């Protein structure tokens, strides 16, 4: 809880720093604050504290995901030096909005009442609507913002209608009370579960509710897209799983089949479309859709190992995405666009960047000894243990397709030449963050027990 307060206060403080023009202090203050928040969250480990008449529950699940969200944000902040300055003069609002969104994310992973789920999602989303459109003069950014807003608001409607129906069926918003209400057979309850699923699917870009994703990612500034792909997605899935695990687990026989269908749709929609992309940012956007499919697979395996699998997968995915988006930002800034051809010859001019990106896409593709491999392996394993053999076979086929398009960028970097490419300059923040990411991808790839044993 303390960590949530720190994040919220930090956001306000950052706004004031901007007001009084302490631009240089923004980054140090945010980073310190986030470190403090992460430390305070870690102090809550094993305490299982309830807050606000059972509205929020800081159990280990909440703590682990909170720390993940905070640390991912830290990594993104590490890349942000001199980034926002190029877009606008009011840098403070970027930091403040991202911190507000983070606060929303923390609420989303620690709710114990549907009201808090709604509020968390809204805090996160409203900040993001603004962030997506923050390049005010850029039509693409405008479009991204409007699309994200309309889709988001639309999805909120479904989520709320579902909430209302579940309230009607069970008489409570409290997750524990819902789980023990025994109203799982009623039509109201079932309709409610489905509608909430639709609403959440919009938020985490699960097909067929994913159509906004590539447009919004492409139109938003690179760093914001990175934030959406990592923090927002992690928070969304953590909330999704928390809701279905703590409230609807008993009714799993009923919703599992729907989740399975969504999972297949998402996997195929994401991967097949990604094959035809020739711009790296859109490719990453579609691949993020496909990763939502793998995560759904973990949700199907309701139970103890599902949360662990989702945690491992999101850690691996967030790390790899930070690296991939970060390098995409560098390349598109230096070479003018994020077309795959822009990556030609990167191995010659910037071996470190090429290596990092290779590692990142290998992790996304699930090649052994990277964190992503164990993530996929773990997810497949829990799904197989529940008997979803065919689903896993389809997921494996999709992993193959994934490898094909992820390798397109590797081919561009290592096997194609670009005669007039010059080396891209890295600032220290980038160098530090990318090195940390490389280290962690390897560490968690070789010793996955470090993260898989947390929960």
């Amino acid at each position, binding site marked *: 809880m303390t960590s949530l307060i720190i994040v919220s206060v930090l956001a306000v403080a950052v706004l004031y720093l901007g007001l009084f023009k302490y631009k240089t202090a923004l980054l140090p203050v945010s980073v310190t604050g986030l470190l403090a928040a992460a430390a305070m969250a870690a102090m809550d480990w094993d305490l299982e504290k309830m807050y606000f008449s059972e509205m929020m529950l800081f159990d280990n699940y909440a703590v682990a995901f909170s720390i993940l969200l905070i640390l991912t944000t830290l990594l993104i902040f590490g890349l942000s030096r001199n980034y926002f300055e190029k877009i606008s003069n009011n840098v403070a609002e970027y930091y403040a909005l991202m911190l507000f969104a983070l606060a929303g994310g923390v609420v989303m992973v620690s709710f114990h009442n549907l009201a808090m789920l709604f509020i968390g999602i809204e805090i996160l989303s409203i900040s993001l609507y603004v962030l997506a459109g923050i390049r005010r003069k850029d039509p693409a950014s405008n479009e991204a913002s409007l699309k994200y807003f309309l889709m988001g608001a639309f999805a909120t409607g479904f989520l709320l209608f579902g909430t209302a129906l579940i309230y009607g069926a069970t008489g409570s918003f409290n997750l524990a009370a819902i789980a023990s209400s025994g109203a799982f057979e009623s039509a109201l309850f079932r309709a409610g579960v489905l509608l909430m699923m639709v609403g959440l699917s919009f938020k985490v870009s699960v097909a067929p509710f994913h159509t906004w994703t590539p447009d919004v990612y492409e139109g938003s500034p690179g760093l914001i897209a990175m934030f959406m792909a990592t923090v927002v997605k992690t928070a969304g899935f953590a909330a999704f799983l928390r809701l279905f695990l703590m409230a609807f687990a008993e009714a799993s026989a009923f919703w599992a089949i729907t989740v399975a269908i969504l999972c297949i749709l998402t996997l195929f929609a994401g991967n097949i479309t990604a094959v035809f992309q020739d711009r790296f940012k859109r490719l990453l956007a579609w691949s993020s859709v496909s990763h939502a499919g793998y995560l759904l697979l973990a949700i199907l395996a309701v*139970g*103890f*190992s599902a949360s*662990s699998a989702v945690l491992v997968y999101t850690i691996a995915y967030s790390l790899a995405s930070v690296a991939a988006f970060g390098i995409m930002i560098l390349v598109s800034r230096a070479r003018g666009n994020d077309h795959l051809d822009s990556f030609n010859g990167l*191995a010659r001019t910037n*071996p470190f960047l090429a290596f990092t990106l290779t590692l990142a896409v*290998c992790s996304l593709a699930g*090649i*052994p*000894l990277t964190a992503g*491999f*164990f993530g996929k*392996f773990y997810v*497949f*394993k*829990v799904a*197989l*243990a529940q008997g979803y*053999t065919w689903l*896993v*076979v389809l997921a*494996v086929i999709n*992993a*193959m397709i994934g*490898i*094909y398009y992820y*390798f397109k960028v590797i*081919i561009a970097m*290592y*096997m*194609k030449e670009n005669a007039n490419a010059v080396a891209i300059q890295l600032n220290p923040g980038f160098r530090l963050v990318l090195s940390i990411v490389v280290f962690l991808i390897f560490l968690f790839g070789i*010793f*996955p*027990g470090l993260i*898989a*044993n947390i929960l």
Partner: protein
Amino acid sequence: MSWISTIIFLPVVFLVIILLLPSRFREWYRYITLGTAILQAGIACIIYLRFDQAGSDGFQFLEKVPWIHLSLGNLGRLEIDYFLGVDGLSAPLLILSAVVMVAAAISSWEIKENMKGYFALFLLMDAAIMGVFCALDFFLFYVFYELMLLPLYFLIGMWGGPRREYAALKFFLYTLFGSVFMLLVIVGLYFSVTDPVSGAYTFNMLHMMDAANFVPGAVFSPEVVQTILGVPARLLGFAVIFIAFAIKVPVVPLHTWLPDAHVEAPTPISIILAGLLLKIGGYGILRICFGIFPDSALYFSWFIGMLGVISILYGALNALAMKDLKKLIAYSSVSHMGFVLLGFASFTTEGTSGALLQMVSHGILSTMLFFLVGVLYNRVHDRFIPNFRGLASHMPHYTAFVMVAFFASLGLPGFSAFIAEAFTLIGTFNSQSVNGLLPRWMAIAGSLGILLSAAYFLWTLQRMFFGTTRFRGGEAWSKQLIDLRPHEWAVLLPMALLTLMLGIFPSLFFDLSNSALANMVQELFETGKRHLDSLQYTNNLRF
């Protein structure tokens, strides 16, 4: 740290050293790599000498360290061990790998650009290949198996010929296609097998090979038929893993990546590809497919033997038609590896021993052959057979080694391939009377393959090396085509001696593996037969 871990991780240590060395020491990289390979060969010698040949049916040099241990709540515990060891089946292949690596390291002298990357990847692949032959934990095996792919992808894709991107991706996707589905079977096996001591689910391959450890009613349980979409699960599991390794071997019709990869790959990579990677396919089939699913192996034996025959004949016929010398050798590899499959399918000690010797022998011979092609290609950047005539008088030493390699490959008595192919065919021939698995005509068809290989090798010899000297490049080529250099001697001579030695004293090899294979074949056949009888699959695949 025991010998096996050392042989695996030595390259990794030197890989780090190469990465840390600044680029101005780039001349050192190749010496470091060569030094690593020679050290590994030394360790391989130690392993050979210390290997208890009488007890080769058991695993030796065992190492077991817990690696990934997780609690999965209601699903029990996930336990993955770093578990290594060699027996009579893997020891010869491990030693072969060390030898081939030295040859590949020497032939890497031709690499001139981006040497840091090349040698780093080379050493990484080296480590992974050694690991594949020693891993006894299925998960660990898979990690090494996949780890070997990525460096190879880059080595072909970055240092290869003009169509390298296509060849590299094709190779990569083919192999991966097999292996990702293998992963599913691995997980299925994991849920089917428990550790007899602790009772936990396990990836331990030794436990998987013992039918007593299967959980009754689990997916791959041999006691009761479980079906997946109407197909018995064990047959399906076997087929999936078999396809994964058959792509590697390669078995016709899954072989099409091989000619492309060979043509585009630089010489050292061709050597490793033909000398070692194909062996991993054969090793996997015997150790994993046959070891874990003996009943399915028996069930499919006719089919596997048939694939072997098809590979032998199809590969040989294709080789006959090739104009590119490297492609010719690539197809001859397909043909020779067909014998391996045939030998395994026969379920006889002779056949299996012959097949294993064939793998070792082909490892040595294909190293020589690809190295010889590389010698020619490095000099004039051409390797089309019609472009050369009468090389014999122009490069006598070179021609001598070509003749050794060709004659050894076509199965001339006195060389290793003769013993190997003879044993394989004997095994196949006996199969009908011993266990009734393979019909006799398969042995006859196999010997037809030897005849065809004699045809294409001798024809090539005649076209390229005999007659009056005439090159397409004219005078310029005559100047460039100088005879063997010292480092080329250093590769070719030991290889030629090795194949001769194995041909004259095959016991050098058979002592290492015989008791292991004899026991293994016997045991596999019996357990397989028992399960097959108790399961009563509808036997519609044996015609």
